């Protein structure tokens, strides 16, 4: 039985565990039909031209993994931003781990999707927002069909959440191969602010396939900053779908730090449904060996006077491959749009490669849209300059790479997170940088 058949038949098993007389289950039922019709995407589809899932789909994944014996905080502390106070929503093999979490209902809801889907008091929010930003493509639909657990974050009007919220997904390798489908919903009210850090981490050599969906709604004048740390081991695959719907005058940013994993595909879509919206999409990718990272972005400018800023940096070593496919869609009504897109790449090795493709579809006539992509090597003259000042080759290379990615790093608003990412980069490059950039 191939994975598609296994998933479709597993849906029946899911129905024994969930309330099938619910709004959400109707959504699930529609979604499984879409997946059943379309199946997994292949390289024949334009959006998947450079990313093949074939070898990944061959594994015999357990769709409902067994619950792991409790992990202790001290063993996994390093995956948390632990030097500041944060809310934490932690999952182990797809199940909620209350002993590692710190949730709240005090003025804001930072809790579980399973609770939100089943308890009556959340029904209105669920009806208004669940699956309302998500696309209806096959993989998103697959997640929708199996959506039971994940993070549920609801920040009411005028609430400024002081502590960042961390969402962590661990997999322990309890099963020989594990498939996880977390589903997150983030609803941020008018004038409310929130910062969220998300990480998927496999603690095993066994294959893990995560097909994750996050929907984010930013109401009028809300500020939402979302950070994705993707530094998993080389048996873990992540397909991430993040959909951000913004109302007028809101600011939303998603930073994606892709440093490790077998294959990472990030589908990141922004929809600007109001005027004077600012959307920021930034990413740093540093990979080697045979790793593959694919960023597929969409910014849909629907209303006038909005801005979007995309800045993706990639450094590719070994036989690694990268993809950047950035689409900016400007509706006819979206006059005075200011859309900026940059994708800069450095290939360290002769065997690494990157496919970069900006796509601009502009139907308005009074807009400023710019895009640029570069692919280069490390600047030899800069290397010699630094070496001539006594900085060894490896450190000089690392400094240049930090300098290269600095634009993205510098916009991280949580200092401890920025420091952590700097450290991850330094350790990837095998250097000690004696200062913070």
């Amino acid at each position, binding site marked *: 039985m191939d994975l598609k058949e296994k998933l479709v038949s597993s849906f029946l098993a899911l129905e024994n565990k969930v309330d099938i007389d619910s709004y959400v289950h109707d959504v699930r039922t529609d979604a499984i039909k879409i997946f059943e019709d379309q199946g997994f995407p292949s390289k024949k589809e334009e959006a998947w031209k450079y990313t093949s899932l074939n070898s990944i789909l061959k594994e015999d994944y357990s769709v409902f993994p067994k619950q792991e014996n409790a992990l202790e905080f001290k063993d996994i502390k390093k995956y948390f931003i632990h030097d500041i106070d944060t809310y934490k929503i932690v999952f182990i093999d797809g199940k909620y781990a209350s002993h590692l979490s710190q949730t709240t209902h005090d003025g804001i809801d930072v809790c579980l999707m399973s609770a939100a889907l089943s308890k009556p008091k959340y029904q209105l929010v669920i009806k208004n927002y669940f699956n309302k930003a998500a696309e209806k493509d096959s993989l998103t639909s697959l997640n929708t069909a199996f959506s039971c657990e994940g993070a549920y974050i609801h920040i009411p009007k005028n609430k400024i959440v002081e502590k960042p919220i961390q969402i962590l997904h661990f997999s322990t390798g309890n099963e020989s191969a594990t498939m996880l489908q977390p589903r997150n919903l983030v609803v941020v009210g008018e004038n409310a602010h929130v910062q969220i850090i998300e990480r998927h981490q496999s603690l095993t050599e066994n294959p893990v396939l995560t097909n994750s969906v996050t929907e984010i709604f930013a109401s009028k004048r809300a500020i939402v900053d979302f950070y994705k740390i993707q530094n998993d081991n080389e048996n873990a695959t992540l397909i991430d779908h993040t959909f951000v719907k913004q109302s007028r005058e809101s600011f939303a940013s998603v930073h994606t730090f892709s440093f490790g994993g077998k294959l990472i595909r990030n589908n990141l879509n922004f929809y600007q449904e109001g005027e004077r919206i600012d959307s920021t999409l930034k990413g740093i990718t540093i990979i080697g060996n045979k790793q593959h990272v694919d960023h597929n972005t969409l910014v849909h400018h629907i209303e006038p006077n909005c801005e979007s800023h995309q800045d993706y940096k990639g450094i590719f070593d070994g036989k690694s491959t990268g993809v950047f496919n950035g689409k900016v869609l400007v509706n006819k009504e979206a006059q005075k749009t200011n859309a900026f897109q940059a994708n800069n790449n450095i290939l360290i090795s002769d065997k690494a490669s990157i496919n970069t493709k900006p796509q601009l579809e502009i139907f308005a006539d009074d807009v400023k849209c710019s895009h640029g992509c570069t692919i280069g090597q490390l600047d030899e*003259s800069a290397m010699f300059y630094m070496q*001539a000042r006594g900085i060894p080759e490896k*450190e000089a290379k690392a*400094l240049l790479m930090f300098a290269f990615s600095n634009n993205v790093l510098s916009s991280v608003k949580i200092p401890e997170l920025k420091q952590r990412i700097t450290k991850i980069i330094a350790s990837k490059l095998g250097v000690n940088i004696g200062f913070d950039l």
Partner: protein
Amino acid sequence: MLKINNLHASIEDKSILKGINLEVKAGEVHAIMGPNGSGKSTLASVIAGKEEYEVTDGNIIFEGEDIEELAAEERAHKGVFLSFQYPVEIPGVSVTNFMKTAINETRKAKGLEDMPAKDMLKMIREKSELLEIDRKFLSRSLNEGFSGGEKKRNEIFQMAMLEPKLAILDETDSGLDIDALRIVANGVNKLKSKDNAVVVITHYQRLLDYIVPDYVHVLYNGRIVKSGGKELAHELEEKGYDWIKEEVNA
């Protein structure tokens, strides 16, 4: 300190240096002059260890050791400093952080601990005053958006921080107005001692009014064709390089 014997160097099979002989002793200032394309900057780069150049014959002895096989950073650790004609912009790395890294890497190579932050700050303060550099300037990205004069002053500031034994100043005067020239020359003169040496590479004599050389060499077509005292620089300023070319070609 520096002894160059019959140095031949080429880049992409094009021969640039065709038998250079030069000896620089501690406490001396040498000027290397010459028309454009004579090989001045190549000589500076080859001494500093730029890999694109291939040494095809001869050798470079620094402090009694043949340094030809050493990487650029190893030469820097031994006390060779090159002030670049075109300093490279490194966005995202501040002047201060760059200097900290350079100094601590040099200390590491010598088996020393990192310089304590307090000492580093004190040194930065002293040396930036010497070059009349505003403290705010030090937190800017290295060379990014610096004017020509700021770049050159920053080069000499780095030289002051690194305290090299041998400083090679490659066209440090180009792009400087007279005030900046005076500040730079003043900095170099204050750093000069009986234990270190300076090689000034320049097209014009004007810098040599401020940094007075003990010896002047004329480089032409990859060879040193004439050497003399500081009066030779004046002669070149007056008469240009044509008479040298004629002498050589005769």
